[in-house]
């Protein structure tokens, strides 16, 4: 099947001014590839600062003015140009933004959901969407500062899915929600996927990702380092990249063992593997040149020695 969204070798740079007029280019995402198939939930998992939200903004073409995008984004087999992105976003492509700050503070919830339309059908559609997430009619008459964190998040989700989009990009939709509310939202994403939409689920929480996703892409320092089926996370041996294994081992139910260090900052990245500083099996080879993404045991991995790390 043709994927609904294919991202090929995406990279994003930011142009910053240091002192005075001296400019520098800060690479934040380097060589990122990802596909989302219709009828599937694809999760993107990574630490904060690994470029997850930027990916969402890149797809919708709402990156800040001082950024530069390279690489290809294909939607429905055709290149997603800025003009096309502008036409499709909010309709076929919907974003569930990360922060509660994405709501307009000067507009009541109902009015901003309907975006100026006042006909009965639109009213009913959005009311149904709110009810579906356990919010009643009174919510429509509230301003965003009157909502609790969990309510605001549900409003954002209702706003995104009411138009029946074909591609949903959910950027950290679950923090601040209790297990029950989170489960209801995950179930609904699943339902939308069953109905033929593609869902890109961005999160830092591997446990939630595994609950819902068919495929999981792991980000580290702006690169995809592994793409695996969710089933591969059943056991450590099925995983490929040492960082994915480290994530697995850090789960409370699997030993809760941390590795030391943190991912490098954009700009302080050197040649070679970005994980080198934290990797127990790093060799001289790993420190030179760009390491490509390759197929390994039915998934993708960006590592020279995907087998050796058990030692």
């Amino acid at each position, binding site marked *: 099947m043709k994927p609904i969204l294919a991202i090929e070798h995406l990279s994003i740079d930011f142009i910053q001014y240091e002192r005075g007029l001296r400019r520098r280019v800060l690479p934040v995402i380097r060589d990122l590839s990802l596909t989302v198939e219709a009828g599937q939930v694809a999760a993107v998992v990574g630490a904060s600062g690994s470029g997850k939200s930027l990916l969402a903004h890149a797809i919708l073409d709402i990156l800040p003015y001082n950024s530069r995008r390279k690489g290809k984004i294909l939607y429905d087999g055709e290149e997603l140009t800025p003009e096309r992105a502008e036409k499709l976003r909010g309709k076929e492509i919907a974003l569930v933004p990360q922060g509660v700050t994405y709501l307009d503070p000067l507009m009541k919830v109902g009015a901003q959901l309907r975006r100026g339309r006042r006909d009965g059908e639109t009213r009913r559609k959005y009311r149904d969407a709110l009810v579906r997430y356990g919010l009643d009619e009174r919510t429509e008459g509230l301003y965003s500062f009157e909502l*609790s964190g969990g309510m605001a998040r549900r409003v954002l989700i209702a706003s995104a899915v009411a138009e029946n989009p074909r591609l949903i990009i959910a950027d950290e939709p679950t923090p601040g929600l209790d297990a029950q509310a989170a489960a209801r939202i995950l179930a609904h994403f699943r339902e939308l996927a069953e109905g033929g939409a593609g869902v890109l689920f961005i999160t830092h929480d591997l446990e939630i990702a595994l609950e819902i996703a068919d495929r999981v892409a792991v980000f580290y320092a702006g690169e995809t380092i592994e793409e695996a089926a969710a089933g591969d996370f059943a056991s450590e041996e099925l995983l490929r990249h040492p960082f994915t294994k480290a994530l697995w081992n850090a789960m409370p139910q699997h030993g809760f063992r941390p590795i030391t260090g943190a991912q490098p900052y954009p700009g302080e990245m050197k040649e070679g593997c970005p994980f080198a500083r934290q990797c127990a099996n790093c060799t001289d080879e790993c420190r030179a040149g760009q390491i490509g993404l390759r197929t390994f045991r039915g998934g993708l991995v960006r590592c020279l020695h995907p087998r050796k790390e058990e030692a």
Partner: protein
Amino acid sequence: MLEAREVTFYYRGRKKAPVLENVSLTIAPGERVGLKGPSGRGKTTLCRLLAGYERPKAGEVLLDGKAVTSFRGVCPVQMIWQHSETVVDPLLPLGKTLEEAGPVEPRILRALHIEEGWLTRYPAELSGGELQRFCLARALHPSVRYLLCDEISAMLDLVTQAQIWDFLLEEAKNRSLGLLIVSHSDQLLKKLCTRMAEL
């Protein structure tokens, strides 16, 4: 012993719908008590009462038999918050923030992997996990005996979460700190706690 005795609390103008009603909870030194419950049930409010930020409308919060609000200097009960970026001064370099409660032992900085270079940076330049390390270091003044951890790792990735708890459990053991751990994750609570409480 840190205890909340039959505390009731409501926010101003909400007397009819109290957040907490006759809630009791005790934490002994060296104990790790897990607290869970749906959102909006008053978990954070209970932490604020235990830390002495708010006074209960009825009932009392006692630390070794004395009201927790009567302590002067560094309060032996400290709270660590979910959103670390909201509890550091955005206009201070982090080295200054770190020393708000007095100098921090270098041992703690090393154990938390706080790098020298971060001390001159501002909060907006660091990630949530890195800021949370500063908040932990700041809360671990030698006179602190109880820590209230309100979803402190919910915003962090698994590796950072494990790093932070690894350190905190070790520290709690050595100093026999009493911990109250608020979380939505059953797996995490199962791993961390010696006892569970529910709201």
